[in-house]
């Protein structure tokens, strides 16, 4: 084996709930020293699980993970505690310790885990803070930092233990678009400095720029790996090309609203866009979940709806007699037929003009997500991505 390979995973598999929910299936990868690997792929595909396994936060069911020929992890063997001391993981939602200042957050691991001298640890922490423009925040508590600053501190905290490999798990997805840049800039500097990293990201442009290798993961398997340009050019795999198409057109046609507040604001906003005396057709199965997500805003919504005399019609997927009735009376509805492949995922869809709105509610504990797509083709690829069949419907006679 070449000596410059720093981390190697061989045929690792992982499942949850005693094998009931498979998460990773026979995944192998290797990371050279100073290399940056980006993991991409649809949500729920196993990216985060792979990262957590590699960081030693989850035990693997099968296979082996090897770090610098020194540490080996498998299901039963390996000192996971020692292994963890040599890598570090940065989480999506920062997880800074609220009772410690920024400087203490950063120096705690070197002092307690690495047993570094206090002066030395502080010196290194201050160096890092200065390098990434956060020196003036060293005595602040995390609650007084912005999201971008928190995430940068979290990355510095992970760097302070001088990890052999740094794992970054969607570090920008909890941030405002405005704050993302500062974090991406930091990661670019790290890549230039030769820090070995594996990161999960949804920013394809950024991934192309920073990564030496890209790995596309779907349903727990590596579908494709190599250089970004190669993957895009070859487009062997229709799934990948779909995914790439949908994700790279984010900025132009696609707007995503996450969480309850945005959901409520969106619902009231879209009502304002509707002309008076029109009809809003909603197709879907969300039922109670919709009302639950509207919460206190439901009254406001209804008031506005009555003011503008907007009719609200819900059409279920299964062609019940009622649905048929609505369709017969409203021929414009026959244009599209939207069917989800799994009914466990409640969702609403509707089409207004050339805009397709998809509301996904997920599990009861999930926050609702709204995807507004202003282009039919992009919408189609998205629907595929969320397991929804889109087809031109045959008119009902």
């Amino acid at each position: 084996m070449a000596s410059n390979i720093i981390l190697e995973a061989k045929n690792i598999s992982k499942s949850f709930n005693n094998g009931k929910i498979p998460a990773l299936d026979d995944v192998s990868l290797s990371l050279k020293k100073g290399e940056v690997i980006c993991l991409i792929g649809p949500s729920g595909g196993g990216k985060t699980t792979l990262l957590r396994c590699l960081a030693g936060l989850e035990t693997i069911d099968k296979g082996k993970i090897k770090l610098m020929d020194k540490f080996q992890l498998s299901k039963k063997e390996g000192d996971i505690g020692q292994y963890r001391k040599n890598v570090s993981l940065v989480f999506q939602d920062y997880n800074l310790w609220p009772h410690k200042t920024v400087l203490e957050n950063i120096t705690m691991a070197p002092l307690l885990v690495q047993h570094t001298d206090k002066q030395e640890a502080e010196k290194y922490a201050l160096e890092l803070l200065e390098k990434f423009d956060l020196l003036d925040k060293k005595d602040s508590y995390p609650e007084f930092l912005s999201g971008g600053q928190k995430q940068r501190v979290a990355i510095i905290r992970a760097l302070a233990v001088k990890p052999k490999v740094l794992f970054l798990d969607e570090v920008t997805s909890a941030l405002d678009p405005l704050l993302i840049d500062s974090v991406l800039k930091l990661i670019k500097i790290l890549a230039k400095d030769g820090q070995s990293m594996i990161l999960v990201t949804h920013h394809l442009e950024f991934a192309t720029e920073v990564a030496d290798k890209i790995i596309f993961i779907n349903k727990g398997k590596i579908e494709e790996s190599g250089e970004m340009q190669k993957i895009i050019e070859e487009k062997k795999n229709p799934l990948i090309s779909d995914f790439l198409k949908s994700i790279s057109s984010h900025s132009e046609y696609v707007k995503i609203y996450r969480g309850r507040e945005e959901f409520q604001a969106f619902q009231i906003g879209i009502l304002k866009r509707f002309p008076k005396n029109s009809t809003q057709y909603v197709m879907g199965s969300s039922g109670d979940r919709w009302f639950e997500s509207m919460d206190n805003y439901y009254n406001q919504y209804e008031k506005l709806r009555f003011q503008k005399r907007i009719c609200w019609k819900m059409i279920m997927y299964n062609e019940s007699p009622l649905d048929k009735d609505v369709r017969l009376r409203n021929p414009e509805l026959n244009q599209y037929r939207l069917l989800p492949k799994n009914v466990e995922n409640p969702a609403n869809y509707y089409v207004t003009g050339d805009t397709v709105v998809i509301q996904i509610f997920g599990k009861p504990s999930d926050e609702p997500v709204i995807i507004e797509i202003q282009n039919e083709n992009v919408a189609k690829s998205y629907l595929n991505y969320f397991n929804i069949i889109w087809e031109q419907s045959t008119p009902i006679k």
Partner: protein
Amino acid sequence: MYLWDWSIISTYKYIFLEGALVTLWLTLLVAVIGTIIGIGLAFMKRSEDFILSSFAKIYIELFRSFPVLVLLIWIFYVLPLFLPIRLSPFIAALIALSINLSAFVAETVRAGIESIPKNQFESGLALGFGYGQIMSKIILPQAIKNIIPNLLGLYITELKNSSLASVIAVGELLHRSNILISQTYRLLEIYTTVAITYLIMILPLVFITKYFENRLKQKLKNI
């Protein structure tokens, strides 16, 4: 018409004072022992070891549902029949009250620990901390702010519960007062004094609890 005679209180003031001291001493010991055992139980209940966690679960459920008075009487009168020991009333009261308190402390501490998000724990793991380090440096310093006001509340209850020890003749405030009544027959004055004495002991604790609660609220407001 009842003729109040308050001179009796000043005559026997040392009896009340001694009684109050015994009450406080008993409560203090119970608080210390009960808290230590309770913290141990909280960790046992959270442990992944099936035997340890089951033991803690049964212990906590059992002694939370037992009336303290029943436990007290049982330990003092029934336990010596099974074991070759004779417990003094004070020790019996100490054991019964500590067992009772520890069950409640365990639940309070466990709830406090579990109020800290799980990802705080994982962020420690990801940086190579051990279990003990994560607990002592990350989780407990945050949890303690939620735990302390609740613990103080439990101590106040325990101070009140200590009066039950009079049933097995522990020389605390209520028991001494009862003896005094049987000698002087000044029931109304003495029980009134007992009530006031308890109030004097408990009120400072109530204010301390309020102070901690307010500080916690202030802290939450800042976040």
